[in-house]
């Protein structure tokens, strides 16, 4: 197995007024707070970071969110197309296409196929259901989201793997009389598929479908639990599935432990950007009714709900490291931390390193990911080669 390390930034727009001046950083924040000139400069920085990551041997991960300054990559297939041309070697993972919300899965199949060809077969495709606070801006019925998501996944796979002319599709949510995508993907039968999941039932579902599983900022215990569920569920015919498991963490590498620690402090800021209107966090039907009912009295009073990572914002850097949410320090320290984490979770194949977040200055992010690519990733690859 080749252990792979991916660089990731959400492409944030951190130039916001004090939190007290707005109700929610998601969904309803007016875009009058957005300065396109600053935004253009930010985009340039982010694509430079991705190019640098490619140059130092890292793979690249993109994501997509909507109606929020936490992520300006609102049309990630466009970014993927740019990176397909601007990079040479990196694998390119879009994790993910929010296909529970997108109304044209066939279009998603086309976009990913085009980028796969453009990149010479370097694309990996993440498919995600979406976070709860995006069903409102996408006008996506939360009650049927899960079923719609899985039908979209089936449809996309079918579009990628049908090569004998048009086929029709009459599903519960999508109907087409004539599907015949051009181009088809370069990779056969299609690019690797990733699905992000944070719950035991979700991890089981991903394994049942035989896709790769990505966990995000879960911490050691939860990641171990989800990976174990995946391993025990998937029917891999005896194949080692370690390379099908990915984990996303905050990763800050400095020349010294002090420098890495200080960069970690900058990454931690993103965990605190979590002010979200309660109406957006818990749309009816997104979670099971029994689960929702537990928090109902408080929720109806507008209390007690926060983004799942918000509580991490007040943790010390050492605590975040202990919990496997962040890896920070000198190159050797980060290697040591990740070796420990690797053993604790029973092994995994991909580290998605969020090494730029929120208002972290370009130079610090660039330095961190250069060390990550040149000094950390090769040692991890050697260490986890067996």
């Amino acid at each position, binding site marked *: 197995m080749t252990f792979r390390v991916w660089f990731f930034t959400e492409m944030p727009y951190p130039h916001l007024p004090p939190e007290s001046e707005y109700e929610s950083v998601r969904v309803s924040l007016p875009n009058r707070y957005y300065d396109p000139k600053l935004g253009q400069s930010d985009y340039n920085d982010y694509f430079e970071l991705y190019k640098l990551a490619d140059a130092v041997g890292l793979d690249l991960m993109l994501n997509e969110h909507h109606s929020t300054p936490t992520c300006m990559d609102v049309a990630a297939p466009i970014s993927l197309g740019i990176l397909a041309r601007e990079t040479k070697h990196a694998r390119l993972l879009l994790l993910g296409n929010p296909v529970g919300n997108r109304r044209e899965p066939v279009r998603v199949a086309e976009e990913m196929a085009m980028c796969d060809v453009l990149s010479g077969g370097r694309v990996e495709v993440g498919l995600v259901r979406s976070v709860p606070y995006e069903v409102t801006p996408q006008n996506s019925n939360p009650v049927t989201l899960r079923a719609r998501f899985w039908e979209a996944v089936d449809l996309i796979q079918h579009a990628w793997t049908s090569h004998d002319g048009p086929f029709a599709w009459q599903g519960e949510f999508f109907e087409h009389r004539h599907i015949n995508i051009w181009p088809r993907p370069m990779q056969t039968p299609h690019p690797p598929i990733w699905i992000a999941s944070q719950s035991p039932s979700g991890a089981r579902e991903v394994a049942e479908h035989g896709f790769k599983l990505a966990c995000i900022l879960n911490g050691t215990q939860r990641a171990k639990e989800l990976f174990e569920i995946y391993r025990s569920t998937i029917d891999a015919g005896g194949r080692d599935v370690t390379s099908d498991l990915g984990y996303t963490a905050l990763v800050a590498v400095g020349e010294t432990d002090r420098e890495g620690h200080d960069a970690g402090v900058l990454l931690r800021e993103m965990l605190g950007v979590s002010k979200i209107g309660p109406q957006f966090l818990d749309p009816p039907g997104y979670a099971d009714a029994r689960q*929702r009912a537990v928090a109902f009295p408080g929720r109806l009073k507008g209390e007690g709900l926060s983004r799942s990572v918000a509580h991490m914002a007040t943790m010390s850097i050492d605590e975040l490291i202990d919990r496997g949410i962040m890896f920070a320090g000198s190159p050797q320290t980060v290697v040591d931390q990740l070796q420990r984490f690797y053993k604790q979770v029973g092994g995994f194949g991909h580290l998605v390193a969020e090494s730029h977040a929120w208002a972290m200055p370009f130079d610090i992010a660039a330095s961190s990911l250069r060390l990550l690519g040149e000094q950390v990733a090769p040692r991890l690859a050697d260490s986890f080669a067996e």
Partner: protein
Amino acid sequence: MSDSWTNRLAVTRHGDGDAVVFLHGEDGLLFSEDLISRLAEHFTVHCPIAPGWSDHDLDSQQKSIGDLSYLYLDMLEGSFNSPVPVIGVSLGAWLALEICVKRRDVASRLGLVSPVGVGTSTDRSLDFVDIYAVSPAGVDQALYSAHGSRTRSDRAQDLDQDDLVRLARAEQSVAYYCWEPYFHNPQLAGLLHRVQLPTCVIYGTADRFVSDPSYHHKIGALLGENAQTCAIDGGGHRVFEESPEQVANALLQFFTLDASA
């Protein structure tokens, strides 16, 4: 009649006397007990509870309130030998209209309390406050009058866990049917002329869920000459919770007048 509805509609009955059918609103029978009790002093009140609001799960074969109305048509045809008065509150009033544009002979008269479901907006704005985009306090503000009513948020504090699950399932069911198109059937306005039944549209003058203060009168006009409106002064959209006695009296008066006509 067939099992098509008996296996999917849970029906509770209250009181004694001539039959009326009560079609529940967004929260099912929760919070409508006072109105049902007052009606039950005069009638046998039949309360069919839709899948999703009862122990029965939502049925993927029914994707709209219009679809759901066929289940209720089966129930009305199978349960009663002659047309019965039908009362609907909010979402239930929408359901009553969907039933009666399809068949004119299952209901004898309609009592529509704070109806929704009819699109009347002419400027592409929503007909109703977007409950999925405002805070819980904002939802209460839209649904209740400003007279210090005990809102669903207040009353939820006293519910036991089973009722909280019922309320969560009810919210899920409302989202299933009302997310898009938002709380209305775009075709329904053009079909209301088919109802042709004595109908009373009862509404609160402080209904802040509707975007257009003349919404209820517009529905009355679309229903035609058999329809009348009855305003409850100061009532909010949930006037059937806030002022059950006044709503019950308005319904009784309408039914009595109609019966003696």
